[in-house]
C-alpha cells in the first residue's frame, strides 16, 4: 500500500524551490526566474527499498520571515525542506531565526536544510562560510545540474517511511 506525505519547500524567494521541484518531478530546468505566488503543489511517487511513498510537495511563495507563512500552508506537513541560495548569503543569514520558529510551532516535523545553486559558487569557500556561521546543512544541490536533487528527495522519503 502506498502512503502519501506532505512535504513543504520553504525559503526566501528566488532560492530555487520551484526549480528543485520541477527537476525532481519533471526532470526539467529553466534559467528564467518565475515568481511563485501562493502555493504550487506537485506529487511524485518514490520507491525506497521496495516501499512506495507519494510525496505531495507544496512549493510555497518565498519569504525571508517564516512567521509570515500562512498556517494553512504548513498544516499537516510531515517534512520541511528549507532551501537557501548558496550564492546569496542574505538567504541564509537569518536561518537560525526561522529554524527557531519552525521548531517552536512544528516540533514534530523534521527540517532538511538545502544550499541550492552550488554550481554558482566555490564549494570549499561556501563550506567554510557555513562552518563559520554554524549552519548545519543537509545537502548542497543544484537544480540546474541536478546535483543531489534526486538524493535529497529520496532521503526525505526514506526518513518519512522510517517514521511512518
Amino acid at each position: 500500500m502506498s502512503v502519501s506525505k506532505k512535504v513543504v519547500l520553504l525559503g526566501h524567494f528566488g532560492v530555487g524551490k520551484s526549480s528543485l521541484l520541477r527537476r525532481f518531478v519533471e526532470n526539467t530546468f529553466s534559467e528564467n526566474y518565475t515568481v511563485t505566488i501562493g502555493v504550487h503543489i506537485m506529487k511524485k511517487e518514490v520507491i525506497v527499498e521496495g516501499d512506495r511513498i507519494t510525496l505531495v510537495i507544496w512549493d510555497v511563495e518565498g519569504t525571508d520571515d517564516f512567521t509570515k507563512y500562512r498556517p494553512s500552508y504548513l498544516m499537516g506537513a510531515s517534512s520541511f525542506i528549507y532551501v537557501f541560495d548558496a550564492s546569496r548569503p542574505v538567504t541564509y543569514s537569518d536561518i537560525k531565526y526561522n529554524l527557531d520558529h519552525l521548531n517552536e510551532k512544528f516540533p514534530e516535523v523534521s527540517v532538511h536544510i538545502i544550499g541550492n545553486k552550488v554550481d554558482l559558487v566555490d564549494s570549499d569557500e561556501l563550506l567554510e562560510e557555513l562552518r563559520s556561521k554554524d549552519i548545519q546543512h543537509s545537502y548542497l544541490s543544484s537544480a540546474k545540474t541536478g546535483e543531489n536533487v534526486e538524493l535529497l528527495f529520496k532521503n526525505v522519503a526514506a526518513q518519512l517511511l522510517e517514521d511512518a
Partner: protein
Amino acid sequence: MLDKLREEYLKNTIQIVVIDNDNKVVATDNSLFTLQADSDITEFHPFFYVISSLFEDDKTEQKFYCVQMEIRGKTCFYDIRSRVDRKKKQVVLFIEDLSDHYKTVHQIKQVRNESIINFNITQELNHELNVQRGFKNKFLANVSHEIRTPLNSILGFLSVLENTDIDREQLDLINIIKDSSKNLVSIVDDLLDISKIEAGKLEIKNKRFNFKKFTESLITTYRLRTQEKRLEFVADVSDNIPSFLIGDHLRINQILVNLLENSLKFTHQGKIHFRVFTPSRNMRRIPVTFEITDTGIGIPNKHLESIFESFTQVEKRGLFGGAGLGLSIVKQLTQLMDSDLEVESVENEGSTFRFTLSMGISHDQKDSKDSRFRTKKTGKNQRNGAKKYRILLGEDIEVNQLLMMKLFADEGSYSLDIAKNGEKVVQFIENYHYDLILMDLTMPVMDGIDATARIRNHPNRKIQKIPIIALTGRTSEEERQASKEVGMNAYLTKPIDPSLLFKTIDRLIHRYKNKRTELEA
C-alpha cells in the same frame, strides 16, 4: 432579479464540492471544472490530499489562499475555503476563482523580486570586490613597509660611504646605486599611495601656501631637468593668480611632478610647455588650470582610457621603466580634489595633460607667516667648540643602530647612546641626562608609543619634556596621528634623510633648551 444576477456571477466564480473522508466526491456543481461523482479527488489535483489533515485539525474552517492549479492547460489561482462536518464525515469546499486578480499580483511580485535579487547579487559582488581590494591594499602596505626598512639602510650607508675617502669612479658608482635606490623608494611610495587612495584613507589637507614660490621652485627644477636632456622648457604662469592660495600643495606637487616626469621620460626632442592659468579672478575661490604639453611619443587613441589604470604602461617592452602607477595616482588624486585629469594626445606628436582645481584665496597675501617657520642654519661649524648634545636612540634592529652611529659620528656635535627597546629607553633617561630621544615605533618588549607615554607621564618634569622624534618605516596617517597624540614632537619616515634629521634635532633641542630655561627661571 438580484438573486438571479448573484447566482449567475457565483456560477462563474465559485465551485462547491462535497467530499467524504475517503477523498471521494459526494456532490459538485462543476461551475469551474468538472469532477465526477464518487471519483477520488486527489487524482484531479494533489492539493486535495490536504483533506485528510482537515479532519485531524481542531478547526472546523480553513482557508487556503492562492492555490495554483493547471486546469485544461491554463494556470488558475483559487482561494479555497473548507468546512468540516464531523458528524457526516464530510468536507465542503468553496473554490473561488481569483485568477485575474492573482495574475496582476504575480506581475507586480515578479518585478519586485527580480529587482531585489539583482540588488543582492550586486551587493555580493561589491563585497567580494572590496574584500579582494582590501587584501591587495594590505598586502601592498605591508610589502612597501618591508622594502622601506632595508632601503633605509642602503641609502643611509651610501650617504656615509660618499663622505669617506673614495675616488671619482667609486663616487659615480655610489651615485648610480643611490639613484636606483631612490627610484625604488619612489615606487614604494607610489604603491603606498595607491593602497591608501583605494582604501579611502588618503585625505586632502587644504592649507595656505605660497603658490608663487611653489610654481617658481617647480619651474627651476624642471628647467634644469629638461636642459640635461637637451629639451626646451617653456613656463607660463598667469600674473592674475594671487600669491597665497589654499590647497593641498604636497598633493598638487605630487601630481605635477608625476606629469612633468612623464613628459620628460617620453619626450626625446622638442619641448615641454608648463602652463598655469585662471580664467577669472574671484574674491574667495578661483579655478586654477594646470596644463603640461609635450612633443613626446604620444599615446595611441585606443590606450587613452587604460593609461589611468594601475600597473598599466602603453610601452610593453619595458623601455621606460616604472611600475605604471604614476598616472593612476594622478588621476585619483585629481578626483579626490573634485577635479578630473584630461588628456589629449596624438601618437608620435605629443600629449597634453590638463586639470583644473578650485582653490581658495588666502585673505592674507603677505609673506610674513612663512618667515615664522624658517629655522636658523645650524651647520657643523656653528656647533664647533660648543658642548655635545646627548641623544638617546631607541632602536632594536642592529643594522639601523649601526647606520645611526655612522651618521652621528660624521656630525661630531652629538654623542649617541642606544637602547634596544622602549623599556631600556625609559631606564636610560631615568639614569642619565639626554637632550633628545630618537624613538623607533616598532620595538620588542615595549614599543615607541608606549615608551613615549611613560616618558610624558613621568613624575620628573625635566624628563617629561625631553623632545622625542619618531623614526619609522610606517607612513600611515594613523601612525602619524598616534605618535602626535602620545606626545612625540616630530615624525620622520625611513629612509632617513640625514640633513632633515639633524635639522629637526637642532630645532627641537633649541626649543627644549628655551623651555627649560623658562622652567628653571
